């Protein structure tokens, strides 16, 4: 038996290809939206992976340092380091801000997450685990390692708050949970960037403190200077990253820190659930809604196209029924055409999404699982969409082929 659907498609191939391409672009948008969501999740996981930590110690009762602000003294890491099972502990600060590159052509700023890392050796918690160009930070001040997504290059001079930094290394896929590329600078510089006020604010704060009789007592020399020093100094960090010894479980190390240091400690799974379940939950729902709408629009378009194609063949269907074609052959013809349209659409959509993904400013992750799921979803949509046309075709009276 010849394939009626195949012959019809070959006969009107231009119409099918053109329609399939249109549908494919819609499917491409759907796949890209799914890729945007996967990219957000992956950004979160990459952030955790690249931090090199097993535990995140943050301010008590906060979801810091990524989902909420967390501030804690920068000397706590010493006592945490002495807790049982702790192999390494390092302070870290995170601050998302505009980072400007200074050049002859003028300043160009980029949204970036500035990460303050503890002076030490590469491989310590918080440090970028690998570079694609240049070297790691070796000086205590004014050097930076930037993700290539910032567009910065080696030897570029960056301006962060009041200080200038030279880019000495470049890394890749070091991004915040919201996809902003990272710029690593020494911790002390990062603390200044995060907590240090400008000169005018410092001057006014000093005046205010001098005018306060509680701090400026004639009988207590040195009090005013001590207070001013404490006000202008910055000794806070956002978190302490902890790497544990292999023979300890995460909970065995986390529990004593919670209990004795009065801090909140998250392990990898908890931090992942915070990032995915809380930080990007609203965005994920937003994207999910878009996916649902796009799926419905795709279904409506496929249904409309198949319905129109079937309407164009009403007389032929009546003739086919009159000369003895079984209903299942006619239904099969319509179903196969819907599926072919879906396959053409999916192929076009997959190709367009693959080529379009790198053009997006944020990471778009097209996973094979999503593609397979998308393929079967498209086929399911096509099957459902063809039901209306099939029902209409099966209702066609073969008597319509006979005049009168």
């Amino acid at each position, binding site marked *: 038996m010849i394939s009626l659907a195949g012959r019809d498609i070959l*006969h009107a191939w231009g119409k099918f290809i053109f329609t399939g391409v249109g549908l494919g672009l819609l499917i491409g948008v759907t796949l890209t939206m799914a890729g945007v969501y996967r990219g957000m999740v992956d950004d979160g996981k990459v952030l955790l992976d690249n931090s090199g930590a097993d535990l995140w110690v943050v301010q008590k009762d906060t979801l810091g340092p990524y989902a909420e602000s967390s501030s804690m003294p920068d000397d706590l890491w010493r006592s945490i380091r002495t807790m049982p099972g702790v192999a390494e502990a390092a302070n870290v600060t995170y601050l998302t801000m505009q980072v400007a590159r200074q050049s002859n052509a003028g300043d160009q700023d980029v949204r970036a997450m500035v990460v303050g890392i503890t002076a030490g050796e590469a491989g310590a918690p918080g440090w970028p685990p690998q570079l694609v160009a240049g070297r790691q930070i070796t000086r205590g001040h004014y050097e930076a390692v930037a993700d290539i997504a910032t567009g910065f290059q080696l030897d570029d001079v960056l301006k962060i708050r009041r200080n200038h930094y030279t880019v000495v290394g470049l890394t890749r896929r070091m991004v915040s949970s919201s996809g902003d590329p990272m710029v690593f600078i020494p911790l002390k510089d990062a603390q200044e960037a995060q907590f240090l006020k400008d000169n005018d604010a410092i001057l006014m704060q000093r005046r205010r403190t001098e005018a306060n009789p509680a701090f400026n007592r004639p009988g207590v020399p040195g009090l005013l200077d001590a207070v001013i020093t404490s006000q202008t100094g910055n000794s806070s960090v956002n978190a302490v990253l902890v790497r544990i010894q292999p023979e300890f479980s995460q909970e065995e190390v986390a529990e004593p820190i919670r209990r004795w240091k009065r801090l909140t400690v998250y392990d990898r799974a908890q931090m992942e659930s915070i990032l995915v379940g809380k930080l990007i939950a609203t965005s994920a729902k937003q994207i999910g809604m878009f996916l649902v709408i796009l799926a419905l629009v795709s279904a409506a378009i496929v249904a409309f196209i198949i319905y129109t194609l079937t309407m164009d063949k009403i007389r032929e269907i009546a003739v086919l029924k009159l000369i003895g074609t079984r209903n299942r052959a006619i239904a099969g013809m319509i179903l196969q055409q819907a599926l072919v349209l879906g396959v053409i659409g999916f192929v076009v959509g997959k190709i367009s999404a693959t080529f379009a993904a790198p053009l997006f400013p944020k990471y778009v992750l097209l996973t094979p699982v999503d593609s397979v799921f998308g393929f079967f979803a498209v086929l399911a949509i096509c099957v459902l969409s063809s039901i209306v046309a099939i029902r209409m075709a099966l209702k066609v009276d073969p008597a319509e082929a*006979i005049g009168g």
Partner: protein
Amino acid sequence: MAGKGIHIEGLSKRYGEGDTAVLALKDVNMHVAPGEVVGLIGPSGSGKSTLLKCLGAVIDPTAGRMVLGDEVIFDDAWKVRDLRALRRDKIGFVFQAPYLIPFLDVTDNVALLPMLAGMPNNEARTRALELLTALDVQHRAKAMPSQLSGGEQQRVAIARGLVNRPPVILADEPTAPLDSARAMAVIRILNDMAQRFQTAVIVVTHDEKIIPTFKRIYHIRDGITHEEAGEGRSFD
């Protein structure tokens, strides 16, 4: 006795029930022998199309008896279970417009019916080509319907009606869209094929050009058929 061909006795068809019922066919009696071509004529609304749909097993007659070949197919109720197979295997249709399937080439338009009946594709195409040759359109075997002239399309439609070698062919105004010469050619072909395949052919027509060619004519008026002898003129 019915013998071969098609035999109809007391066929009636009522639409609706009660006060709104319309008796479209009241008492139809016909017999068309194998190899014979008869005309079925009548004014609009006389019941021609209803009779054609009853004969074509597309609608259910209300009462009567129909014998196709040696088989009683209707006797106040359908005696065959699969009307679709009955239409496919025992009845050939030729329509006013050819209604060829636009996405199949000429050969496959004709070969589709035997394929639907389960015949292997090659065998079905061979049979189709034989018919196309008999109808002198074998040179257009690979053409698409849209590439054919009106006369060629109608010949292909006749080939499709004959391909399963049905005992009866129902032709609904087959010459309506054609000029005199082509109309006569189609009637000649139907007669030739009826003779060659011993098929009974019923031609429903209004076409004054071809009515004189029939040897027998059934007039239908108000749902009742009346038989009369035709002129049986030559087709030239």
